[in-house]
């Protein structure tokens, strides 16, 4: 009896599935292949999921693998849209051209890193050189006195470096932008496992300094203005300064297509750049391409 009931229940559960399967065989169903950057993969997935509600006839298959993988797939023509957290190289443009198409670039958002300190820290700006002395291997800054400040509530005035785990994109970008491609991080930093963890730790630790996405800012931490060299004027991190390119540690995030997109691909990209699409990237912790107003 019990077994019979279970079988019946199982069959009942299968019914809607088979109904669904039948529906998706409709002639107008389009699948878009979207591949590339791991930095963008979460946002790309969020876009794809939200877009299912907008246009149920278009399914977007998102895969990561890295920016290089995405662009290689674009060259081979196996994707409709390639995601990349770096701009396409000239050699890659030539390869796409050789395959008979012109790559078209879309900037879909910005990944801006802010340098955070505790709310009580009197520091207001910092330069790349100073950051490199704090974070870089062989750097000499160990105490806040090295920056000529005294941080209230910080015992021993030691600089507590907060960083990220060594294979995160944020770690790699900060290293490349601030330390240079070949200089390693100084060992002994507190390596947090997420963007939010960095901000949380800085919030609770008077001695701390950390870097994380702009969107993770809270009222209890302070974001430093960033100068590329010590005597140049420092730029405040914000969505605006990330968009106009004046903020030095923001990188644009790209999507590439082969030739001018048409049909479903164009509709999808237009939607990504719309208010709704840009709110999703903001929600995921990146800067949108322009100011957007998103309800809470």
């Amino acid at each position, binding site marked *: 009896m019990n077994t019979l009931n279970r079988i019946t229940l199982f069959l009942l559960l299968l019914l809607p599935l088979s109904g669904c399967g039948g529906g998706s065989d409709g002639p107008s169903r389009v699948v878009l292949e979207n591949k590339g950057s791991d930095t963008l993969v979460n946002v790309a997935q969020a876009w794809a999921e939200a877009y299912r509600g907008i246009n149920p006839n278009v399914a977007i298959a998102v895969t990561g693998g890295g920016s290089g993988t995405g662009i290689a797939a674009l060259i081979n023509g196996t994707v409709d849209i390639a995601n990349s957290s770096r701009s396409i190289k000239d050699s890659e443009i030539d390869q796409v051209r050789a395959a008979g198409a012109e790559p078209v670039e879309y900037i879909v958002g910005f990944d801006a890193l802010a340098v955070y300190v505790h709310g009580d820290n009197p520091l207001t700006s910092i330069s790349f050189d100073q950051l490199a002395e704090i974070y870089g291997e062989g750097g000499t800054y160990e105490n806040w006195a090295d920056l000529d400040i005294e941080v209230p509530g910080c015992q021993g005035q030691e600089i507590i470096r907060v960083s990220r785990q060594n294979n995160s994109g944020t*770690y790699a970008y900060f290293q490349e932008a601030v330390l240079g491609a070949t200089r390693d991080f100084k060992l002994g930093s507190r*390596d947090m496992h997420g963007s939010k963890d960095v901000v949380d730790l800085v919030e*609770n630790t008077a001695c701390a300094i950390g870097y994380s996405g702009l969107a993770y800012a809270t009222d209890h931490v302070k974001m430093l203005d960033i100068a590329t060299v010590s005597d140049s004027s420092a730029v405040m991190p914000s969505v605006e300064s990330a968009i106009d390119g004046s903020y030095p540690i923001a990188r644009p995030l790209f999507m590439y297509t082969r030739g001018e997109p048409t049909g479903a691909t164009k509709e999808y990209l237009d939607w990504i750049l719309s208010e709704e699409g840009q709110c999703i990237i903001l929600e995921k912790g990146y800067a949108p391409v322009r100011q957007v107003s998103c309800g809470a």
Partner: protein
Amino acid sequence: MKQTRLIMPTPDLSPEAIPTTHADLEALDRRDLAWYVDKGLQVAIFIGGISAIVFVLGIFVFITKEGISFVTGRFDLVEFFTSPRWLPTSNSNPTYGALALIVGTASVTGMAMLVAIPFSLGAAIYIGEFATGRTREILKVLVELLAAIPSVVWGFIGLSIMNSLIIDLFNVPIGLNILNAGLILGLMAAPIMTTIAEDALKAVPDEYRQAAEAMGATRWQVIRRVVLPAAKNGLVAAVLLGVGRGFGETMAVLMATGHSIQIPDSLFDSVRALTATIAAELGETAVGSDHYGALFTLGIFLFLVTFIINLTADLVVRGIRKK
């Protein structure tokens, strides 16, 4: 087949009824539903029984397979055990020194044991020897409840509450350190240690206590001179299992140690544990790369260490059971 016979109805033992031909035996062998259920359960229990061995072997084979290309290739034994430089993603010069991670794990586990041993042995002695009736039952339930708190919750307590608390109490720059992780890990390991230690105390025959009391020993003397020495092996096993728990714990130490690569010189230094390194880095590592292999090599090392600790504990426990 032999076992099936045993549950057959009482056999007719008269000489002519004893089955001699194959056909007679077939007739006796009634394969009804009960027989199949019995067989099925036998198989299921057998699979359940050996599954632990199969899984442990399977896991060992898997981590060895993933780590072996690194061990035989890039791996440098001296670097691995003597260098604190764990920089697997360096662009210029990747290094795979695990010393700081090993020291980190060892120091946090050591701190945890300093906390957990007095707590759990004290609790076990109180529950096993002094508490009676309701108090005893309630205490046992509470201790087991402590074991039910998920490790990520402990880690969260370490990250958000203990961090600020340690900064304020000890006037140190950061509260994510050996002390924080050790305290948390101690509290996490204490319940299982208490339970095993209490079992060990319970295994000491009451006659021992009665004999000692008859000779005029006080309660404390009975415990210290008679019960504890008699339960020694079980107590050692409890401590060893606690150590194994400490070595293997991941989430809480990831969050509470500060996850910082350095050789600590005080309780207030941040460290990084082996387990936490694997947890934090494996997810975003290219499969088959040196970094990937190095993480699995850490896994092999951890597996061997915890395996030896648990095996020792098991042998020690077996030691008392045989007596």
